[in-house]
């Protein structure tokens, strides 16, 4: 366990202690250390007497055990069963010291005495005996093992095995294809009842016309229809089988036009505003001769599908947003400064480093672009087409962000999952390539989905009551990308998924007609990974849900949205002639009085005219935010922050013991839990037969019905709460030793960055 008060010891304790007692601990009684294996999982190689490094400064906390490579994960089995507490959130499929092979970014072997280092790939040779193995993980962990006492040969073998098995030659070699087959057959009996109803989870998959129909109805998009020309992927291999198109466009025309679109990706309906404006995405038209004509047809059809026949605005995202390589580069940089750079050394230029990574700039660019589109749909009441060369990357981010801002449905847990399913999975985002699960082509790798999650986090950070799910949920979702057991993140397109899963079903003797959601579930079935209790960490206690009620003066009031529909009048410019006239004179005057310029200048820079969209945003910001209405993130650079839980959760130096937003979450959760207890009491009072007296003993609802992780009955915050909660940095981030500990360093390191003017004045 991470020390509760790392500041507690005197500063002497931060000095690396002399390694005297190492020998004592390495004469362990031979114990059989068995890994916990999943169905279909086999041990490939293993090494005994391996040391897992906990801290980069000293080895006194290091753990001894056995390092195992299986066809699914790298596992570390402790020699001594630890007496300490379990981590707050425990994964059902992975132990505390396990790393899925797909989560490995880089496998590095080191020989300290020879001063050698090698990054291992598949089928490689290693000319030295490794003394150390460093695993850089895609979830930003850095895990270090020392082989000092392990046999040199077995150390080498296990390293090579890890490197080899983390580079699968083919998609179907990913462990999910083994595991899900076994799991399907082993758990068949339990499923007897539920298999028809998709295992009981609510997230629509959008692989059936009915899912789309429901969306059309829900958003009131009456001039749009489900079209099945792509059934069996007849038109496009990356589009879903069922898509939604404007009613005025006939199947015939669509088929005809499709050949001119990149990847045959014809315009695809995403969402409808209640004012009738539609959000549509499409690929670019590759034949310049046809471009105008086809665009014209498409635009006309969309205009006709608008109740006010309002025009269509096209956004070419390739031109306005960073490309996937830019995003990958930024991510690599921000990851580097967050976890790889030594903490204290990077402290001095931290802000500039964050800026130079450009990650936040990109996050902001996507949010800003999305907000502009929101302005068109909501403020200008025009339909919007998102166009991107392939319509499979930037469009996914922007279309889902726009919907998240406009439609509160998507801010619920189930709604958010359906959004990802609709705009990412079914829309053909190349998860396989972008995640680079097969480590084949680094050029295709790009963390677009993480960028999207970061954007969602920015909004959540600004509007904490608007989302049903938490920061921890987004983080866990990002981690799930690196566990190859769920159908969600394994494929490049719906077609690829269908084909692979058909082959899989055939090979695993799964009866034809069985639902793929049942035999190869998506990540949305969270019970695969977490207990019901741990899943409550996804629930945001401050969420104001749909039809949210608030008790006021004894009445239950429903939040209603009072929408300010005065855009037309607010967008009217103020008398600009007067303003401009005065402004000009003001500038002249300024030039003459240069003495004032230095201090007054910022204020008197020319008064800029607000653009209509700026006016729209300012108007919106001047109103109270309706958590169940339109939500626009603050777009000033000062309001886009680094997603600390995601980037810094493993960094021990950045962990605030007994602090961080979680302490507020704890307090609110308890209150909400109390409310839920009261509500369930009320329900019992007015139970089915009103005459019944409730049993006084049943004061609390069963635990399964309680949505809060922290219960009302635990008033004091637990000691293990920290800003990294529910994750723990212990053993998950061990950089190669850079001596001198963070705290001692910055406390002793006298740094003067300022001029001599300082000195002269100090005597004052």
């Amino acid at each position, binding site marked *: 366990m991470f020390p509760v008060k790392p500041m507690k010891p005197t500063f002497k304790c931060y000095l690396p202690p002399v390694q005297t007692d190492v020998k004592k601990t390495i004469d362990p009684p031979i114990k059989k250390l068995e890994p916990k294996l999943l169905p279909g999982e086999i041990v490939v190689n293993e090494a005994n007497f391996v040391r897992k490094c906990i801290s980069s400064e000293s080895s006194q906390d290091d753990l001894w055990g056995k390092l195992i490579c299986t066809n699914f994960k790298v596992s570390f089995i402790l020699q001594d069963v630890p007496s300490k507490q379990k981590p707050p959130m425990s994964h059902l499929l992975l132990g505390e010291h396990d790393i899925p092979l797909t989560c490995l970014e880089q496998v590095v072997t080191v020989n300290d005495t020879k001063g050698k280092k090698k990054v291992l790939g598949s089928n490689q040779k290693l000319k030295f005996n490794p003394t150390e193995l460093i695993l850089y993980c895609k979830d930003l962990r850095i895990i270090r093992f020392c082989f000092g006492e392990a046999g040199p040969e077995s150390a080498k073998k296990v390293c090579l095995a890890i490197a080899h098995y983390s580079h699968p030659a083919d998609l179907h070699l990913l462990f999910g294809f083994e595991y899900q087959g076994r799991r399907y057959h082993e758990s068949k009996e339990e499923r007897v009842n539920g298999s028809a109803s998709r295992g009981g989870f609510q997230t629509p998959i959008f692989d059936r016309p009915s899912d789309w129909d429901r969306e059309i109805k829900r958003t009131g998009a009456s001039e749009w229809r489900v079209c099945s020309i792509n059934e069996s992927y007849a038109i496009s291999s990356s589009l879903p089988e069922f898509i939604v198109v404007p009613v005025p466009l006939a199947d015939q025309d669509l088929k005809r036009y499709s050949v001119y679109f990149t990847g045959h990706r014809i315009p695809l309906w995403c969402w409808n505003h209640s004012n009738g404006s539609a959000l549509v995405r499409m690929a670019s038209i590759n034949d310049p001769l046809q471009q105008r004509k086809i665009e014209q047809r498409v635009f006309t059809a969309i205009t006709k599908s608008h109740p006010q026949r309002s025009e269509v605005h096209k956004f070419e995202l390739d031109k306005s947003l960073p490309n996937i390589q830019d995003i990958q580069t930024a991510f690599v940089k921000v990851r580097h400064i967050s976890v790889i750079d030594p*903490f204290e050394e990077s*402290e001095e230029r*931290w*802000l*500039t480093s964050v800026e130079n990574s450009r990650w936040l700039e990109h996050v902001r660019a996507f949010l800003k672009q999305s907000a502009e589109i929101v302005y068109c749909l909501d403020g200008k009441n025009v339909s919007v087409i998102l166009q991107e060369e392939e319509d499979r990357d930037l469009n996914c981010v922007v279309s889902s962000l726009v919907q998240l801002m406009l439609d509160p449905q998507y801010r619920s847990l189930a709604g958010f999952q359906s959004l990802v399913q609709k705009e990412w999975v079914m829309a053909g985002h190349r998860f396989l390539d972008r995640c680079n699960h097969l480590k084949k082509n680094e050029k295709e790798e790009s963390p677009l989905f993480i960028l999207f999650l970061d954007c969602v986090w920015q909004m959540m*950070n600004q509007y*904490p009551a608007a989302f049903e799910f938490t920061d921890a949920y987004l983080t866990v979702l990002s981690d799930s990308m690196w566990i190859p057991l769920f159908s969600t993140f394994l494929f490049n397109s719906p077609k690829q998924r269908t084909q692979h899963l058909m082959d899989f079903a055939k090979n695993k003797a799964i009866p034809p007609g069985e639902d793929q959601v049942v035999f190869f579930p998506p990540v949305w079935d969270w019970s695969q990974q977490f207990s019901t209790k741990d899943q409550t960490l996804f629930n945001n206690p*401050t*969420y104001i*849900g749909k039809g*949210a009620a*608030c*008790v*006021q003066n*004894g009445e*239950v009031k429903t939040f209603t949205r009072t929408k300010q529909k005065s855009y037309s009048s607010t967008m009217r410019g*103020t008398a600009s002639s*007067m*303003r401009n*006239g*005065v402004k000009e*004179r*003001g500038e002249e005057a300024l030039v003459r009085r240069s003495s004032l310029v230095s*201090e*007054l200048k*910022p*204020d*008197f*820079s020319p008064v800029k005219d607000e653009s209509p969209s700026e006016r729209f945003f*300012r108007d919106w*910001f*001047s109103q*109270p*935010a309706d*958590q169940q209405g339109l939500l626009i993130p603050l777009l*000033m*650079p*000062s*309001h886009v922050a680094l997603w600390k839980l995601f980037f*810094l959760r493993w960094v021990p130096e*950045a962990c*605030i013991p007994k602090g961080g937003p979680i*302490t507020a979450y*704890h*307090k609110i959760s308890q*209150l909400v839990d109390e409310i839920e207890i*009261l*509500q369930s009491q*009320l329900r019992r009072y007015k139970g089915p037969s009103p*005459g019944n*007296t409730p049993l006084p003993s049943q004061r609390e609802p069963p635990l399964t019905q309680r949505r809060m992780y922290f219960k009302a009955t635990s008033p004091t*915050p637990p000691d293990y709460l920290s*800003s990294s909660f529910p994750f723990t940095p212990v053993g998950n981030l061990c950089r190669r030793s850079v001596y001198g500990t963070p705290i001692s360093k910055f*406390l002793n390191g*006298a740094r*003067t960055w300022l001029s001599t003017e*300082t000195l002269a*004045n100090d*005597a*004052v």
Partner: protein
Amino acid sequence: MEKSGSIDSLGSKRSSSRQPSVDSLSSTSTSRSDRSAQAKPPSAMSSDSMSTSAEFSPELRVKPKTAVKQVLRDSEKEEPQLLPNETVQDMAQDITYFCPFTGAVRGTVMVTNYRLFFKSTDREPAFVLDLPLGVVSRVEKIGGASSRGDVSYGLVCKDMRNLRFAHKQMEDTLRKSIFEVLIKFAFPVSNGLQIFAFEYGQVFPENGWKVYDAISEYKRQGIPNESWRITKINDHYELCDTYPSTLAVPVNIPDEELRRVAAFRAKGRIPVLSWIHPESQATVTRCSQPMVGVNGKRSKEDEKYLQAIMDANAQSHKLFIFDVRPCVNAAANKKNGGGYESEDAYQNAELVFLDIHNIHVMRESLRKLKDVVYPNIEDSHWLSNLESTHWLEHIKLILAGALRIADKVESGKTSVVVHCSDGWDRTAQLTSLAMLMLDSHYRTIRGFEVLLEKEWLSFGHRFQLRIGHGDKNHTDADRSPVFIQFVDCVWQLTRQFPAAFEFNEYFLVTILDHLYSCLFGTFLCNSEQQRLKEEIPKRTVSLWSYINSQLEDFTNPLYVNYSNHVLFPVVSLRHLELWVGYYIRWNPRMRPQEPVHQRYKELLAKRAELQKRVDELQREVTNRSASSSERAGSPTRSITPVQTFV
């Protein structure tokens, strides 16, 4: 006294648009509206726009309905509700205000002996600007009469904004511009007038001047005890005129020796007790630099005195002397007779420099920060621009220093002596922050007020000089945002420990607003002695009177009273943030981040309501079961279902 509706004037800075969320609040608001009706919150400052930028903090949104209604009515009126004894000095029509965010606005200006009030005539809803003259740092006439006959005035404000107005050249050359009138009342001290705090006679239910009593605060800490005593040697400020009259010193140093120690410490500011650890008896003591000089002068008495401080703590045989300055600066002070303790002279003492820069560096840093955040934030290079101001870096060093002190006292059980040059700027920052980390009492609202009264006001932080109340000399090198910086550090702590403080962000912003407003006497003068001489407590109202009369506005609902919980913040730029709710609040494109506090209050109201119903039903059931023997099976009164909000 006339009960003028200062609620209204406060209201004008609140946007009426917050109403829906106000509505969502229930019974709590009702009770408060009563209280605020009598308490009459004075207007602090007003917004730069009609929008929400007006709001200093999210908590403001939680307002009693009545107040909101008054605002609505109010904005239709021509002028603000004046405070008691506030008088209109001048009014002018056809003034243009150049809003850096939304363009030029035309309207009327009113200047009183307390505020400037601008109200637009060409916008709907009206744009209102209501600022206390105390925030004005300087007024400059920009340019002479131009061909078009306009005169322009720029107001540089202490609270991170600049305002610019223009009006037609006066036809009548004898008539003064309203801004000339403003200058007179913005700088009363320079114009032989009285600061408005002396005229404002508002009566509040609570008397804030009673918040701090040195003797009872020492008593709370267990002083006097076997090692520390209270001395009356400074009763008439003869030992040290910038120290409080009540001092706590080691028991075995007689008053006579204190005088000799005083001779060796700059301005006579001898080491005295600030805080004592309730268990280990390790202490935080504060003083000024020793007068070592270039020749390395020593003082037996001073050495003995520090030894006595160390001996008062049986747990440790060491004493840490934290010289808050950078080492080079401390050495440079030798030329002026000052310097630092040599470890040769002070046995068992270890000297540590904390590298915090002086008031001039801090002033420059904040000036740069203002350039970066006001009026607009550049889209690119925000973080590097922010870094180049060094503001957060300074915040970090101050917090790091306080953390070291807290750690020494809590974990090392060692006593510490803290000083800078004079011991009234950086020393106050460091001791008060360390005490805030160590002692949860100071994290309550009243405790924090005590902390400010004690470590800042009574120990002579020179507020008058550092802020320059009512003084037109804006280039005065003695001005410095030392106190703002401290409040910023406190805000950083509240960010890292959102449940550890009883007060909210609005509390901190309010303190800073009234640091400048000159409405209350709290931050006037430079020392306890001066305050006594000016009869400040008699002649002015304390800021704590206002705050403590409506505590709910300033309370953090998430507060958990962890007893004996020492806060060890992570002092890293990864966790330090720019306080946007203060520095960028004038920007209408910034909305106070949606607070969970508000939501928590709603949930509290909901719980109360549910509890009430459950109790009612329980009673009903009990009654029924009592009578059920007679009439079995009578239907219960139907109950409206409480909707779940999820």
